[in-house]
């Protein structure tokens, strides 16, 4: 049901777009929403914080940047390779660090994200260093993908796919096991759930979501800098999850929408942009502390009673 609503939104939204600029914003919303859905699976459902998720975004982005230029591989292949690489990194690092809890896990994932960003910044021979590198355009079956409207449909479709996948995942036995882990790790353990393995599975999946989003971002912008993997990007992703609503897949779309559109709107305030952004994040979190979507749902449920 929510999947159909989201699909309808994706399809009908362009009817209200007055210019190509809006397509551009739409693409960015869907790309970030994709990464946020993945992160929300980890944070909202499994209850595991990651302050380094932009690291996976960076791996995905630089895969499609480096692959075609240094190895002559097609972009779409590099996108998959990036996702597999991100999954592999998550697999290797996940088992030891997911034993950590709460703020310790936060600092470990933060370190992981920073390591990726530092490598991307310093290996200038491969990545162009802090100035970044340009990314060759996506070519699909001889079709040269260009223009924001083409990307709108690609990103929109992928987002709906990721969205449906996440919903189904949450309804599966793995999803229920993850929610049990969220409520009480020891409780879940006693029930016979392989906690370490389930946490690792969802960490890998959420890393792959971020990686695909990163690849899209690089291909769409045609340019990428190490900032994509930076600490502030990670914080932004977490902010989207929390603002939209932890554990709400629809919230991921709303959170991404708010934090992509808001800075665009705020540019008219010039130098006040950052101060206003900080203020709005604070006000949202104070008054809608469970996130936008869960708070609205709760308000409606309360009225119906």
């Amino acid at each position, binding site marked *: 049901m929510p999947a159909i609503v989201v699909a309808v939104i994706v399809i009908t939204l362009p009817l209200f777009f007055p210019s190509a600029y809006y397509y551009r914003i739409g693409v960015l919303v869907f790309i970030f929403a994709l990464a946020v859905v993945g992160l929300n699976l980890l*944070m909202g459902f499994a209850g595991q*914080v990651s302050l380094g998720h932009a690291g996976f975004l960076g791996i995905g982005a630089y895969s499609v940047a480096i692959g075609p230029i240094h190895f002559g591989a097609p972009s779409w292949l590099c996108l998959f390779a990036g996702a597999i690489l991100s999954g592999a990194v998550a697999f290797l690092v996940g088992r*030891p*660090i997911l*034993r*950590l*809890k*709460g*703020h*310790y896990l*936060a*600092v*470990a994932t*933060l*370190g*992981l994200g*920073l*390591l990726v960003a*530092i*490598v991307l*910044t*310093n290996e200038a021979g491969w990545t162009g260093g802090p100035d970044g590198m340009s990314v060759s355009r996506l070519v699909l079956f001889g079709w040269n993908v260009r223009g924001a409207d083409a990307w709108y449909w690609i990103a929109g479709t992928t987002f709906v796919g990721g969205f449906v996948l996440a919903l189904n995942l949450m309804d599966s036995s793995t999803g229920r096991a993850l929610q049990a882990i969220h409520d*009480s*790790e*020891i*409780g879940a353990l*006693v029930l016979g759930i392989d906690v370490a393995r389930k946490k690792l599975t969802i960490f890998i999946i959420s890393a792959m979501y971020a990686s695909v989003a990163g690849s899209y971002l690089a291909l769409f912008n045609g340019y990428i800098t190490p900032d994509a993997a930076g*600490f*502030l990007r990670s*914080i932004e992703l*977490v*902010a989207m999850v*929390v*603002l939209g609503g*932890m554990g709400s897949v629809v919230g991921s779309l709303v959170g991404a929408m708010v934090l992509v559109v808001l800075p665009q709107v705020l540019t008219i305030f010039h*130098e*006040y*942009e*950052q*101060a*206003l*952004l*900080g*203020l*709005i*994040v*604070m006000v949202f*979190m*104070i008054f809608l*502390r*469970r996130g936008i979507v869960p708070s609205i749902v709760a308000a409606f449920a309360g009225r119906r009673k």
Partner: protein
Amino acid sequence: MAELLQFISSGLTVGAIYALVALGFTLIYKSSDIINFAQGEFVMLGGMTTVFVALAGVPLPLAALIAIIVTTAIGFALHRLAIEPARGASPVALIMITIGASIFLRGVAQIVFDRRFHSLPPLFGADPIQFGGAAILPQSLVVLASATAIVTLLWLFIDRTLLGKAVLATAANRLAARLIGIDTRRIVDFSFAVSAAIGAIAGILITPIALTSYDVGTLLALKGFAAAMLGGIGSALGAVIGGLLIGMIEAFAAGYFSSNYKDAVAFLIILVVLVSIPQGLFGRAKVERV
């Protein structure tokens, strides 16, 4: 040998600043369970306010005092206006509020001040002292002495005064503290104000060595947080040692390995330590109640 001394002195100087930031994290965490990501902004505000008040013609010591008072007031206001209204929200929501606050403070700082780098004159001149072949900046000694003084004063205060004992009681058990008549809200007010003051002092001390600008806070918050976690969150001793360790690791990594990868080496070591000791060096293992 001279090289070694040089790295130790620069490592300890930066480490002392990290330690002060980590101490700020710890103080707030102890009294309220909140990780305050605006801690780095306190450091920035201390340095930047001093620079601009001094530029307005106020003598430097007075400017520093004004900066500490302003930052302390901002720390207090942060708790009263942003954290207190959200009481009972989830830890992640509270962290998001402090991150929002740090974006806000950074945004305001670039309007009120500017977006350039600034420095302050060192307290005892810029001529390095030669010691065993190493050149040590007098300001480094000022940083180390001040950090030692702050840590000692804070320890004396917590250990010897009634208010300090109330802070300890709040940290140990909030409900029990309220039951015996401690106004825990005031204690949290107090810990935010003191953390802000410590941050501001750290910012003023480091500016002559490392420069300051509106956006230095992020990196310092990150390092301070990492230091607090390395030491074991909630342990003041851990915060200080964690800070000094990270400073030293960075200095040695920069000296013997590569200055581009000094942060990478620091975080790699933090990862290894945390994976082998999940509660940090001095933290207590948390027992989960089911």
